[in-house]
Structures are given as C-alpha cells and as structure tokens.
C-alpha cells in the first residue's frame, strides 16, 4: 500500500552519495548535518560518501576534503577515490595503511579523457586485488565496453558497477555474467520491472541500493525498491545487507 509520505521499511545504507561542491556544480548542502537530515527524511541510516570534487578535478584533494563530512559519528562512511596518477594510488595506499580504506571508487574517467584500460590502471587494479578491496566504477562516467574489457582481466576483483541506466538495459545482464564478482548499484536502473528481473536472473545478493545523490534525488529509487515484488529478506539485502558485506570483506555468492 502507498501513502503520500514515505520512509524505508527496512534499514537503508546508501552506497552512492557525493558530498561537497564540484567545479561545475553547487552542492545542495553546506553542512554534513543537512545531508544526514535528508537521509533521515527517507529512512536512510548510513551512506558511503565520496568527494564530488574528485570526480572531475582531483581525487587526492577530494579525499582530503572528505574528513569534513565523515569526521563525526553521523553515518557518513568515507569512500576514497583513485585516479590514474601514481600519486593518487600512493595516497590511497597510505590511507589504507592507516586502516581507513574498506573499498575504493574510480574517478570519472570520461571527464578526464583517460580511457579505463589495463595499460593505465593495472597498478591500481593489481593492488586492489592483492588487498581484496572492492572497486566502485560508474557506468555513467566510464564506457561499459572499457569496464568489461578491462575488468575481465581481473576476475578476482570485487567490483560495484554504479549508475546503470535504462539505456544500458540490454547490456546489464551480459555484463553481470562476464563479471561474476560484480555487484550492480541501482540508482539509475529504472526500466519497468527491471530490478525484479535482475533478482530473478542473478539474485538479490548482487544488487545494492544507491541514490547517486546529488546527481539524483535521494528518495525515488529507495521508494521503488520498497514497492518491488520481492521478499523482505531480499529487500533488506539490497537496501543495506549486501553493501555491508562488501565493505566488510565478504565475497558474495554467485547465482
């Protein structure tokens, strides 16, 4: 049943939230508390947050700027970003040595005109495999062909594909089949009954909720998830359980 108001009926952990201004986009909030209040309005308890600045300009600067948002006990979990520059990897390695890194996000490769190819990103990918750290990759910002062509060379790398759109509908299932360690984040996956079909095809344990805030408003996808024809256990896994397992280091089971 639907109401004119909504909060999630299961715990929600948003796996895809940007924070801070970007060079070409103003952030809706000035303070972390405002973001936390927006999360609470929808029933979101925790969020993985990355610095929007790092998407287009400097992952390194963005990672340093994250602390302003994640420094308190506010449910905002840092998601550090890596670029193609060797210094960027060194920064991530230093953060990891300090116990701060549970997963890593790839910067927006298309915006920097850096193709996501093995001969550029091998040091990053090899290190992630060695440390068993999952990698978030945005399908909104890296061509699907590059994602698949490069990541099929790293079958042990756990990866989260972010931002698959309805325009990617015909490629999502084949992608998940050739990348058996891939999880799909659902912030833009809006084709009718598309998520139910994915649950049927690959299992709920390979899907996670994300909003892609501030590119997208926080509530609509969470609202849709709460109204899918799926079991509550699957809903709970998609909305929070699966991402918790990912960043804690468990390997998801294949269907």
């Amino acid at each position, binding site marked *: *049943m*639907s*109401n*004119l*108001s*909504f909060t999630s009926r299961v715990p929600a952990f948003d796996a895809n939230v940007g924070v801070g201004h970007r060079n070409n986009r103003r952030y*809706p909030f000035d303070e972390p508390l405002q973001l936390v209040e*927006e999360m609470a*309005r*929808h029933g979101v308890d925790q969020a993985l947050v990355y610095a929007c600045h790092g998407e287009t300009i400097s992952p390194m600067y963005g990672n340093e700027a994250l602390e302003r948002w994640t420094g308190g006990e506010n449910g905002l979990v840092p998601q550090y970003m890596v670029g193609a520059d060797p210094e960027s990897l060194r920064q991530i390695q230093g953060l990891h040595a300090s116990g701060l890194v549970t997963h890593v996000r790839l910067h927006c490769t298309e915006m920097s005109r850096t193709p996501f190819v093995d001969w550029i990103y091998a040091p990053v990918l090899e290190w992630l495999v060695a440390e068993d750290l999952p990698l978030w990759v945005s399908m909104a910002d890296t061509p699907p062909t590059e994602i698949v062509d490069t990541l099929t060379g790293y079958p042990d790398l756990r990866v989260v594909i972010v931002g698959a*759109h*309805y*325009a990617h*509908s*015909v490629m999502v299932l084949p992608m998940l089949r050739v990348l058996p360690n891939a999880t799909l984040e659902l912030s*833009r996956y*809006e*084709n*009718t*009954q*598309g*998520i139910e079909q994915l649950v049927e095809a690959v299992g709920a344990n390979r899907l996670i909720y994300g909003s892609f*805030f*501030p*590119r*997208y*408003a*926080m*509530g*609509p*996808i*969470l*609202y*849709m998830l709460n*109204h*899918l*024809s799926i079991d509550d256990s699957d809903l709970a896994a998609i909305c929070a359980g699966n991402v918790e397992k990912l960043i804690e280091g468990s390997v998801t089971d294949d269907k």
Partner: protein
Amino acid sequence: MIEGQEIIDFHGHVGPWDVYGMYDDDSAMVKAMDAVGIDRSCLFNIFHPDGTSGNDQTAAFVARHPDRFVGFAYVSPLMPERIEKELGRAIDELGCVAIKIYPPYSTWKMTDPVWDPVYAFADDRGLALISHTGPEETCQPEQVGIVAARFPNANFVVGHAGNMEPFRTQAIEAAQANKNVYLETCSTFREPGVVERLVTEAGADRVVFGSDVPLMDPRSQLGKIITAGISDDAKRLVLGENAKRLLGMNYSQ
C-alpha cells in the same frame, strides 16, 4: 489510489522499443501501477508517422485494460495530409482523449506552421496536447510558450518539463506566461529539488505526474513526487487532480 486520491500517470508508451530493452507488457505495467496505487496510465505510440498504425495499436492496448489505460492520439507532420483526418478518427472512433506529439522525430520546430493543424484541432476541441521537450532544437520549451499563446483553448503539457537546464527554466517560464501550459514530471534527470521548483515556480495546479512507463518504472517516477518536499495538497494536485481537469469531459472513471 493513495489515501483517497486518484492517481493518473500522464505519460506512457505503447509499442516495443527493444533497443532500450523496453517492452509494452500490459500485465507488467499494471502490476507496477498496482504496487504503488496508480489508477490510470495515459498511453501513446509515437513510432509510426502515419499515426494510424500507432493509434490502432494504442487503442488495442487500452482495450485490454480499459479501466486502467487511457489512449492519446499521435500524429506527425511527416505525413501532414493525414493529420486532421487521423486525429478525428482517433478521438471520435478510437476513444483517444488527448494528443501526443514527438517533434524530434521530425525536422520542424514546434513553432513551425506545419504543426498548426494539430494545435488547431486541439484548440477547437479544448483538448490537452503533450509534447516531448528537452534540448532538441525541435522541441525546446520556449516554443511551447509561443504556441500556447496562439491556441488558448488547448492545454499544452510540457513533457519532461524540459528535462534539464536551461530548458527546465524555459518550461517554467512558459507556464508562468500562459495559463494553458502545464509541466509534466517524468524524466531521467531527477536532481534534488526539481519537483519542488516546478511546484513553487509554476504552481501546484500546473504540474502533472508522468512516468514514461514502460521505459521507466512508474514506481520510481511516482517516488519523485511522494518523496518531494511539497505539501500533501500539492501532491494530490500533481498526482491526479490536475490530470483529471486536463482530461476533462472525455475522461470517465
């Protein structure tokens, strides 16, 4: 229905679009509608320039669930000789209640006189007409504002409300300048604050909910309205009352 409010989705499609994995599966559409309380979806087939082929498919599709689907008539200036007759047939014989146009499938801007027979038909009958709008040169929302002023008895619905800036602002300005312009909400561009802005700047009585079903799931698009920071009264207008008014005497429950 949601809390006693009839919910009408003003923007949906008939006809497979399988390059995008979109299939017009009526049972899947009704299932998604039922999950969130959408009572009716307005549907049209934009893929056939003769109008007739698509409108016949729309009518047949609507007939499978006549209490859940509402048909809109589609015509194209690629076949101008067919426009008036096909609109008459679709409205008077097939039961369509409004008009849909899709200018990007032609080379003419909405302000080009080639479209005038469509507008005149809508104006003459007091019908609603929804057009795709966005950055495409043929359908930027400022064109709707120009046309709406010339045909004051028709109601022009700006599909996707321009989709993105600066076209969203154009859409709002068109609505502010013309009482017969409405803004429809379906869009893949759903940044924070969009729905709130449409309501605040154009008026809650001038915004209508749409989903683009089955291209987009109506549940997420409805979620845009439900989770927006607007009053429940505004939600009721956006989710159904404005659409009922637009569909007017030709619409029956």
